[in-house]
């Protein structure tokens, strides 16, 4: 384990300020669903993790947030890198995960195994970070709900084809449910569980 140099590389060079900036961006993104944000901070993440996903991992994950990784990530240096820099334990149980990261074009069969929180503590749910091909081009989605005046559109390329059906199911669990962040390279947009999507 000690031999893995990729895990020891990268990380924020100024952890306090950089993670605060990224946190602010994620918070604003959740408050304004569907708006595209661009991460300037360099997290120095190993492939195949994207730079927005890497910065979000360093900002949000810590010792108290088990992280689940899709196969492409867990078989790379990503697992040790997140573990070393954020202290987060890597879990194979989706239900335990507070954050989950999926690489681009990996299959998405169900949200059901991730934690949707409880009726008393709906915040104890998984936030799923999904890498897609691109944001701002591709399939046009119409979004509505809290944080959106009337409705807005977001364009996403490479959204898993099951996503819209799974999202509709997720909406029915409210106040339980998962939240999603779509990432593409340096860009990301947030889809909190309150957002309605029409494809």
């Amino acid at each position, binding site marked *: *384990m*000690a031999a893995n140099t990729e*895990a*020891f590389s990268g990380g924020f060079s100024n952890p306090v300020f950089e993670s605060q900036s990224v946190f602010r961006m994620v918070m604003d993104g959740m408050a304004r669903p569907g708006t595209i944000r661009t991460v300037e901070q360099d997290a120095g993440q190993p492939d195949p993790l994207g730079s927005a996903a890497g910065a979000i991992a360093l900002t949000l994950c*810590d*010792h*108290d947030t088990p992280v689940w990784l899709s196969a492409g990530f867990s078989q790379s240096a990503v697992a040790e890198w997140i*573990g*070393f820099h954020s*202290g987060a334990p890597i879990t194979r149980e989706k239900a335990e995960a507070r954050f989950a990261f999926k690489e681009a074009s990996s299959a998405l069969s169900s949200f059901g195994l991730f934690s949707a929180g409880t009726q008393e503590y709906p915040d104890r749910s998984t936030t799923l970070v999904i890498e897609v091909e691109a944001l701002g081009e591709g399939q046009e989605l119409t979004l509505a709900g809290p944080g959106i005046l009337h409705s807005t559109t977001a364009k996403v390329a490479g959204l898993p084809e099951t996503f819209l059906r799974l999202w509709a199911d997720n909406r029915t669990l409210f106040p339980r449910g998962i939240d999603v962040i779509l990432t593409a390279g340096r860009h990301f947009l947030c889809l909190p569980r309150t957002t309605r999507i029409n494809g």
Partner: protein
Amino acid sequence: MYVAVKGGEAAITNAHRLLADRRRGDRSLPSVTIDQIAEQLGLAVDRVMAEASLYDRSLAALAVRQSRGDLIEAIFLLRAYRTTLPRFGSSVPLDTADMQVERRVSATYKDLPGGQLLGPTFDYTHRLLDPSLLSDEAVEEPARREAGEEAIMRVSDILAHEGLIEADGDLPQDQPAGDLTREPLEFPMSRDLRLQALARGDEGFLLALGYSTQRGYGRNHPFVGEVRIGEVEVEMDIPELGFAVSLGRIRVTECQMVNQFKGSSKAPPQFTRGYGLVFGQNERKAMSMSLVDRALRAEELGEDITAPAQDEEFVISHSDNVQATGFVEHLKLPHYVDFQAELAMVRKMRADIEAARNGENEMKDAAE
């Protein structure tokens, strides 16, 4: 009802300035240093660390200095500080059998392996004020004697061989421990969470509860199986190394209270145990904790719950002095609007009674 008002900023600023002045006191006297507090008021520092639930002698000494010796204020400061730090992980559970013992006494066995080691204790002092401490007289170096090679075994391991004393509980060795700093309290709670709450609980509150069990409110026939104080190694698994390393040593106090138990439908007659473990040197707290831990096991052991010390929700909800002081002391903050509302209500109730009384008198007058 809450109404936002503004004002008093200058008063607050000047109050803080005045506090700083009074904290410093007479400028012709030297200022007390952090090292002096840590070295010479060590037991105050220990209490602050235990109840703040943060082991750091220098920071606890700083808190004592900043709080002018108000220990609950110091505990509050240290608790607030700990919330600013990330958590790196959990230690390997401490091995108190491997302690470098500085004091160890047992009230149940005179000749136990390792012997009775009195250590730096106030016991057997005459509690007479010592005028020599008015000045800074030289203090003798401690006496020394060759230390035995004998292991200082835990007293619970001695009785255990006969099956007369219960084991350390039947939860698995690798059971994940609950953490009340991460999850909200829910009752009933497991013993691991209770011990965490008691370890940071207010010394005075636990002392009074322990005392109440001795006076008959949930009596549990205690004997001090053992009290030990000393340093233990703190080890942590380091994922990037792949093994556990020592982070250094901390001083703790451990109490094994042994309680006679007549048996119940749930457990046979045997000696049961209450457990106390506290940061620093504080056997009063460790002993109180072990008495209360045992009292709170009433339900598990099939005993009647009749006394405050056995009532888990009562004990655990009120043991934290930072919470308690916050709620009690908030009463002094402005409640102008609440009080005006109550004032109006009391005036109205009085007017209603007055009116009713006048009405009765008129009826009486009319009847006569």
